[in-house]
């Protein structure tokens, strides 16, 4: 499921030009993070990928089809989208009904719908909350309901808008494990995040945006080591990379284990 964005621009009715001349190709199975300051155009770009928005200029292709030639309903079977604010997404009276809505619209059998709902709720840790009203849950849990609803659609591409906001330490670890598993299964994953420690640990490629344009695009640890470039996008390197830089290292460790390996090698050499 390749996504190709060619010279895309988007202007809101208010006149705000949120995207300007963005070109990007995302190959099937990639895990890509979009980072940058508030208002950089990250969410607008993501909404172009599943047809919630159509480019004012340029084009967006999903699996060879221009998004303008597809309905949002058709695109939603290819590209799942989990909103930053779950209240933009949830509408059903129970968690179960919310997660079942998408698969049921795919005209799956009730048995298949039930199986998908059970698996999706279990993956996000909400198996015991199936009968509750989504709005009786706290916001972080509502975000997980929205995620489960997208997971149950089994879309080849999944867009996660700020998935770690409001999640506690355990919640972030659970999300990280889920991202790793979906990535290993070959799902294309795109996230928008300010959580650069999460981005470094779980996404192989990062796209840095500022002012509606792409400033940098490349392997996560490389790009997130470029302090001056990141400053243009109001972004600071992840904590592990800041630590490596403070110690005068040229290496950019992606995990605590890698950090300790580099430390051990340097210690052995000195």
């Amino acid at each position, binding site marked *: 499921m390749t996504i190709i964005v060619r010279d895309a621009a988007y202007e*809101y009715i*208010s006149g*705000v030009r949120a995207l300007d001349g963005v070109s990007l190709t995302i190959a099937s199975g990639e895990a890509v993070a979009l980072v*940058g*300051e*508030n*208002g950089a155009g990250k*969410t607008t770009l993501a909404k172009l990928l599943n047809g919630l928005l159509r480019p004012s200029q340029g084009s967006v292709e999903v699996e060879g089809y221009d998004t303008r030639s597809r309905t949002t309903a058709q695109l939603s079977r290819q590209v799942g989208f989990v909103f*930053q*604010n779950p*209240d933009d997404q949830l509408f059903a009276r129970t968690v179960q009904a919310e997660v079942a809505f998408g698969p049921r619209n795919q005209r799956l059998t009730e048995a298949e719908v039930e199986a998908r709902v059970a698996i999706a709720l279990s993956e996000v840790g909400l198996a015991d909350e199936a009968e509750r009203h989504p709005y009786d849950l*706290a*916001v*972080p*849990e509502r975000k997980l309901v929205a995620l489960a609803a997208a997971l149950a659609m089994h879309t080849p591409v999944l867009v996660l808008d*700020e998935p770690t*906001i*409001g*999640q*506690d*330490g*355990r*919640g*972030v*670890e659970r999300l990280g494990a889920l991202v790793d598993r979906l990535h290993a299964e070959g799902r294309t994953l795109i996230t928008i995040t*300010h959580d*650069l*420690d999460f981005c470094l640990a779980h996404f192989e490629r990062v796209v840095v945006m500022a002012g509606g344009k792409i400033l940098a695009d490349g392997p996560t640890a490389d790009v997130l080591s470029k302090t001056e470039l990141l400053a243009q996008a*109001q*972004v*600071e390197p*992840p*904590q*592990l990379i*800041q*630590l490596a830089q*403070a*110690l005068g290292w040229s290496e950019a460790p992606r995990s*605590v*284990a890698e*950090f*300790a390996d580099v*430390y*051990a090698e340097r*210690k052995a050499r000195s």
Partner: protein
Amino acid sequence: MIALKGVTYRYPGTQRDALHAIDLTVGEGELVGVVGANGAGKSTLCYVLSGYAPHFFNGTVEGSVQVAGHDVTRTPIGELASDVGLVFHNPFNQISGARYTVLEEVAFGLENMGLPRDEMHERSEAALAATGLMDLAQRSPFALSGGEQQRLAIAAIMAMQPRVLVCDEPTSQLDPAGTRAAFEVLRGLARQGGTTIVLTEHKLGWLAAFVDRLLVLHEGALVADGPPRQVLAMAMDHAWGVGATMYARAAQELLARGFIPPQSLLPATLEQVVESLR
């Protein structure tokens, strides 16, 4: 400035205490962070301090809640509002919907306080400048991004100059530069303005670097209270669901591999871990 004695709160229709037997004293000008797993009671503590619990959410409060000289459980929210400000977790819940521009939204609370027009202007513009929103002053609040709305929520409460400021994850939607700026503004309000600030957060790195004191809530109880480094080190040894900074995790890994000597206190900030490796 804040004195909670034996405070237990239960939401209506529930069987469990959302907060249980909390004793807490916070002095004038202190900047206090609150951490804990989701559901630990962080937002509820914010609601109790600002009077939303029980006045808005109903439910039952036991014990004594004294904030800025008010007996909170007996004082209407309207009366508390000029002394105790609450920045909501979701800024969308805070925007009044009654004003057309960002500037008017910030001035809305001041209008309700009956301030003179010049003072309203002065305070609103100062709050917008502090939160980096001056360029968006004439924009509709609903045309802002999530991060910008969050800065607006902070600005609107700041402008009211409350003696006690309670913030429920005030930087959750902000980019790193915005987060740093928000923490600097809050620290300035506490240090120079003498504002007492209680804020909940999941961003442990920022808390470790900025707050004077850190509290941990676990299943409604206050289980730790002290300097951030001490409290975060304790949290790594308990199943409170607080997590740890990557700095602390890196130090812990080096400790486990025998590269640094056993320490009673794990570092929590960049400066602390660099120091411990020297």
